């Protein structure tokens, strides 16, 4: 270690890796992972979210967690987004591709992706 820059580089590289232990970020993405969700393909969706959050460098503020059955099995995989100061948004029939779009538009851009929400599916 000959310089502060080297130390900072290690810290930067590691920070994402330990951020998860600081507990929930201000935004939470919750993936329904009960039997129905897993059968409908929730696992790749969960992984896609984790990857997209990492790639976007958002691990400090966004946490991706899972939950049990939300109770609307016909719409699985279901994902709920809780952002500070916003109503909960429920996305349904999720896919890994949709997950990437949600990170781009909703989490980073602040705009709910209306066509993926439960409201759109019911209509």
């Amino acid at each position, binding site marked *: 270690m000959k310089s502060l820059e080297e130390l900072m580089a290690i810290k930067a590289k590691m920070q994402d890796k330990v951020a998860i232990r600081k507990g929930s970020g201000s935004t939470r993405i919750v993936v329904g992972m009960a039997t129905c969700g897993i059968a409908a393909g929730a696992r790749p969706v969960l992984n896609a979210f984790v990857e997209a959050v990492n790639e976007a460098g958002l691990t400090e503020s966004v946490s*991706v967690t899972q939950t049990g059955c939300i109770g609307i099995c016909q719409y699985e995989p279901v994902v709920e987004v809780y952002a500070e100061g916003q109503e909960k948004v429920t996305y349904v029939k999720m896919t890994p591709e949709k997950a990437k779009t949600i990170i781009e538009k909703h989490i980073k851009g602040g705009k709910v992706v209306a066509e993926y929400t439960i409201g759109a599916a019911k209509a």
Partner: protein
Amino acid sequence: MIRSHVLICGGTGCTSSGSVALRDKLADELKAKGLEEEIKIVMTGCFGLCALGPIMIVYPEGTFYSQVTADDIPEIVEEHLLKGRIVERLVYNDQAAAAEEATASLSETQFYKKQKRVALRNCGVINPEAIDEYIAMDGYFALAKAVKEMTPEDVINTILASGLRGRGGGGFPTGRKWQFARASVSDKKYVVCNADEGDPGAFMDRSVLEGDPHALIEAMAIAAYAIGADEGWVYVRAEYPIAVRRLSIAIEQAREYGLLGKNIFGSGFNFDLHIRLGAGAFVCGEETALLTSVEGNRGEPRPRPPFPAVKGLWGKPTIINNVETYANIAQIILKGADWFSSMGTEKSKGTKVFALGGKITNTGLVEVPMGTTLREIVEEIGGGVPNGKTFKAAQTGGPSGGCIPASLIDVPIDYDNLLEIGSMMGSGGLIVMDEDTCMVDLAKFFLEFTVDESCGKCAPCRIGTVRMLEILNKICDGNGEMEDLDKLEELANYIKSASLCGLGQTAPNPVLSTLRYFRDEYIAHIVDKKCPAGVCKKLLNYTIDPDKCKGCTLCARACPAGAITGKVKEVHVIDTAKCVKCGACMEKCKFGAISRK
């Protein structure tokens, strides 16, 4: 891509309750389920709630599982890690925080809420065997700041201004000690860490070494820079094998990164560190004895002055600080003296770690701001005295300290208040006692410890403590006389004033403080020949109430000494001459017919 971290405590407490087997089982199970790319297992240092080990925390949820066994692992993997359903039955049950939300994340529990973690900030958070994780938590940035941006005087002034005092027992201002060593002119100086931790019941130093060893290395390097030393020694007891291993790994890693060695951060500052194992003699925690032991000689104290800051290791100026003292240093350099001195009381700044033990629900380690009351520690954080018993007193400062009676439970705990009420901070052992503790017996326990541990170099300590113990034994056996109390006090004062080192100077404290607050218990032993708490065996008698005895024979069968006689369905009797006062009969009796008086 990792989406979840499972933290398992790898401290000594949880290791002995099986956390290593837990990790292995979890690793196997994750592999079987194909989750090893998604979920990372991290072995950490101590979380503090040792009574409920092994402990496991799952992030990002922060779910806090306690008393997990290897058999629970498949369920945790299947339910929680795969399906996201928290395994409620294993979630730590925070009695105080009403069961509304069983997902009690760690930081919300009553046990953690009032704590302020400075010295223990990384314990239970990072993997102590990974230097990169320490760096991610701002590790070694304080050292960089010190050697690049500050002069040694700046460092010393910051520590002085912070008000940090030694956590090893004496409470001497750390900055002042460094100032003296800086002022000593010499071609060679040393920094030493006291990790001997001899106070029975205390284990905060072990926890820092096991959970955050780099914090110690960084602090010692900063201290060396401040006083102008280039070499350091950590004196740690050999009974701490996990601590020794983690510290050795950490030193290796720091050397590899050039954080120990020559020209650190290109500043021209050199520093390297060695470990010396101690054999576990209490007196070797005393600083002059410790230095003698590091030099390879028999660990005996020598008179001060000269103080180590003038003439220490191998006759060179040396500072010696405790592990917990060092664990605060990097934080003070990074966050500033004002940040540190904003916590605590007027003359005791910052936080203190206490090892809670004895009759308390949450045995373990807690770190609270100085000035927290004993009531907050015992009732709120510690979860109170278990089994519906009442709080009688707490012992602080171990064999050098004294007891705090229930009437003083609201005194804010800091160095000066404790001294005033006849106890002392010591290293932070805090043993809680309930109504079943006999205070004479307690004083005897600590005095037996000092008699064993006295090194024998000076007569007041070697002989005086034995004489005191003889008097206590006499009182507990029912042969005490009232004059004995005066003799105890007289002897105590001679020993305190004439002993060579702190061991003898403080050894009478447990006797003096119990005499001060619980004199009536001594008198009960001497005059009434009774032990009110029912502990001192020679003063106890077990009897069977003939009106309540149904003649079931259970007691007679339980008695290991054959002291109980009686026929079936007839009243039984205890032969007091044969009775060994073990209490087995009383435990067995279903009719409450046996009493102890």
